[in-house]
């Protein structure tokens, strides 16, 4: 069941550049468990889109199957959404994007959805550099099927039923880095301050952006033996670099030390400011990022923030040399070669 919220607008609600209120970015009432990390992601997305003044109907919300994949129903009801099949969101998003490159593709997946059944599709959509924001709500378990261990669960942890994770975890950020993603970040659903600007940067990035968001499952993976519980994550989080997002035509102020701060002009003219919290960190080195992730993991820490960014990335349509008009808007005139040409073709078969 899903509930529509009342659409009555309080006259004095704040509006963004498009004249839309925060509520214009909301979706149906969530049916997730109270306290589920995924709901915090939803609200971070709403905030980011509202603040970026994204036109809701220019967004396509994509997902697979899982609690996390339900989340797109809970933001932006004015955007079309496609809740597809388990693990296959990347291919559906690829096709959708092929058909219409003018939309912003916000895709939500789970760790079961992306690291197990969907791992092949995940890898290949990274490889194809599809222009999209690929979010994984990483809770270390299969929420919707009641708590089985995901492939992202750390080796040795137990799920609620007491089963131990026997194998090394698959780190989706490391994989995305290795596969050549141009924007890779990790964040925490409980840290909106970090998450919202990362989301904004990812949405403004033209190219493939991946964000692994640790998102505790309160029902099945919030116990003391978990490394995806709110408490554990709070206590073990560490951040390499974060972003600030400065929209077009905003005056740029300097609020950080030279050297630890870098302003990058994005294709639409807005500025992404990378602030390094760890001054050693290099957001341009994918290999080092992989090693840093692992070193922190060895120390029991979770490295979050912007892990890698390549501002000059190209994306699928550039590589494919697709025409600028979205393919779904080409008319018969542009598509159909017509009878005259056909008669020439017929002749080639005589």
């Amino acid at each position, binding site marked *: 069941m899903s509930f529509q919220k009342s659409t009555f607008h309080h006259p004095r609600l704040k509006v963004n550049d498009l004249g839309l209120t925060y509520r214009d970015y909301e979706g149906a009432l969530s049916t997730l468990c109270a306290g589920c990390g995924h709901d915090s992601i939803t609200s971070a997305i709403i905030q980011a889109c509202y603040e970026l003044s994204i036109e*809701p109907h220019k967004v396509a919300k994509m997902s697979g199957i899982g609690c996390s994949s339900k989340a797109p129903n809970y933001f932006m009801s004015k955007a079309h959404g496609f809740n597809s099949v388990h693990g296959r969101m990347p291919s559906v998003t690829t096709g959708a994007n*092929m058909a219409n490159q003018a939309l912003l593709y916000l895709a939500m997946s789970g760790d079961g959805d992306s690291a197990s059944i969907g791992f092949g599709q995940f890898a290949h959509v990274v490889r194809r550099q599809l222009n999209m924001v690929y979010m994984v709500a990483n809770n270390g378990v299969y929420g919707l099927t009641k708590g089985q261990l995901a492939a992202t669960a750390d080796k040795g942890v137990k799920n609620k039923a007491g089963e131990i994770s026997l194998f090394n975890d698959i780190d989706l950020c490391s994989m995305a880095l290795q596969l050549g993603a141009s924007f890779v970040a990790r964040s925490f659903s409980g840290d909106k301050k970090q998450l919202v600007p990362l989301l904004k940067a990812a949405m403004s990035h033209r190219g493939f952006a991946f964000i692994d968001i640790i998102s505790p499952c309160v029902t099945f993976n919030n116990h003391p033996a978990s490394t995806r519980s709110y408490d554990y994550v709070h206590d073990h989080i560490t951040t390499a670099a974060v972003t600030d997002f400065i929209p077009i035509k905003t005056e740029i102020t300097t609020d950080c030390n030279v050297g630890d701060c870098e302003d990058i002009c994005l294709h639409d003219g807005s500025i992404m400011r990378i602030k390094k919290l760890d001054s050693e960190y290099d957001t341009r080195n994918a290999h080092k990022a992989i090693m840093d992730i692992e070193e922190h993991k060895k120390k029991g820490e979770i490295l979050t923030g912007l892990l890698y960014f390549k501002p000059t990335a190209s994306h699928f349509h550039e590589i494919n040399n697709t025409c600028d008009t979205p393919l779904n808007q080409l008319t018969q005139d542009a598509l159909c070669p017509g009878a005259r040409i056909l008669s020439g073709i017929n002749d080639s078969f005589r």
Partner: protein
Amino acid sequence: MSKHNEKSLHKQTLHKQTLSKKSPNNKELPQACQAINEFVIRFANTNGTGSASANNMFAKAILRMGIPVSAKNIFPSNIQGMPTWYEVRISEKNYLGRRGGDSELVVAMNSQSINDDINSVKVGGYLLYDATKALNSEQIRGDINYLGIPISAICLKEYSNPRQRQLFKNVIYVGALAALLDMDFAILKDLVKDQFKGKEKLITPNIYALELGYQYAKQQFICPLPIKVESRDLLNNRIMVDGNTATGLGAVYGGATVVGWYPITPSTSVIEKFASYCARLRIDPATGKKNYAIVQAEDELAAIGMAIGGGWNGARAFTATSGPGISLMAEFLGLAYFTEIPVVLVNVQRAGPSTGMPTRTQQSDVLCCAYASHGDTKQVLLFPQDPHECFELTAQAFDLADQLQTPVIIMSDLDLGMNDHLSTEFKWDDNKKYQLGKVLSTEQLDELEVYGRYLDTDGDGICYRTLAGTHADKGAYFNRGTSRNKFAAYTEKSADYIDNMERLTKKLTTASQLVPQPIIKQGKKIAKIGLIYYGTSSHAITETIDHLKEHGLSADTLRIRAFPFNGQLEHFISKHQEIFIIEQNRDAQMKSIIVNECQIDPNKLNSILHFDGLPITSRFIEQAILTHFEQQSSTQQAS
């Protein structure tokens, strides 16, 4: 040499001597085969040796002489070094199905298979072989005629490059055939020129090779043979092309822009041809950019996923696959059925189950496509019979998918897809507009009071869809494979669920009216026999009808072109006393569907099932029908 084994041997070839009535060992020779424009030539080669293009040139030369011809490539599932055959049927009676049986002339170029190949010559027929190495006595049949040409030796003498020595062997035997069969040599030369347009340097050596063969035959044999060709004007504008090329071209004309695919024999060339026509016809002249996007996906699940994503977003999207790919697409086909997304899938069927015989033909995915996916599902299927229909039905499939908002599966097969077929030329009416179905525009949404994605406003089971990005406030919905109410909201309510499922059934009824109708051929007087068939079985039918007449049996025919069926099929069945359903599978799959969907007593339906992986023959069908009536009359006599 199981068949007509003759031990002793004096002369292996008919060197400049009249065809005598005596065999080389003085036994009585059977009458040498005689035929004009009505015989079969079988080429036996090794794959990867370049024979395909030479054999194809031969077939095309017959075509250009105005004589109906059909060609079947029987190739192994491997790349190089294994036996491969090419069977050309020349028939001015327009019998263009595979004839089957032994051939009047066999060109035996493969030492691996030569014993079998010799046995495949019809009594009184001819064997053209490479006489560089003499045949052994086991290989001499007394009842056929041997045409030995030292092809390897000629090549060794004429060419120094080993690749040329190999390649030109094929051209040489084509040249020899030109002399033996009295073909128009000028046509062969033209074909060479056409083939090497852009690589002019290759023209002269190829023509030279043709002439080597031609001259050798002229000098050594009495030309032409009693089997030969004569120019005619019997083509009626027909073209010769394979079905996959036609399907790829149909997709271009149908306006397809989004393709996800994964290579698999025999469907691969559908996409390759689509891509090459797009590269020619679909580049934006202003910018040099592509008006299409093709992705070689990581597998078939991704391929159909991409097509569905494209279809959901309003592009005309498709994919093509075969056997294993169909199985892998089952989950996504259920999603597209249930979420009502237009998408086109080309299934070029091959011999199953499992990997089966990947380079053999069958019609054995009918059942699994009609009811693809778990749960209660029914899919729309189209059954083209020839390249013309591959083109036309593919273009139409995009209209149907958009109008019906559901997957449309084109059920081709390896025979149709990969073999050249003589076919009505492709036709396109520039006045015909794409049918984009019920998609609401910004203006229409503006006017609408309430929008419900699954409101059956028109009562035909088809609802109005909206595309992302169309309207700032209205029409957005959350597309999902879970059950939902008329407003696309999630529901587990029984009533909503049933309502939706029954509407989908209604939609299929609407579909049965929109899809291509069966082709019925029926005299004024209804015949006793009704033949029902579909797809490539059609090529055998003219011949079957003629031959049945010779046995005093007349038959009406119905060719199924689509599923779901409408009343015409039932009506045809009810009007005929004896119904035969002709299929190329083991389990009578189409019959199952007919029985099930039309509520027909299966005992009324006789199945003719050909499933050995080769295209069905008229002989097989006739045989089955005649046997049926013989048994019937013998039981009647007995009782």
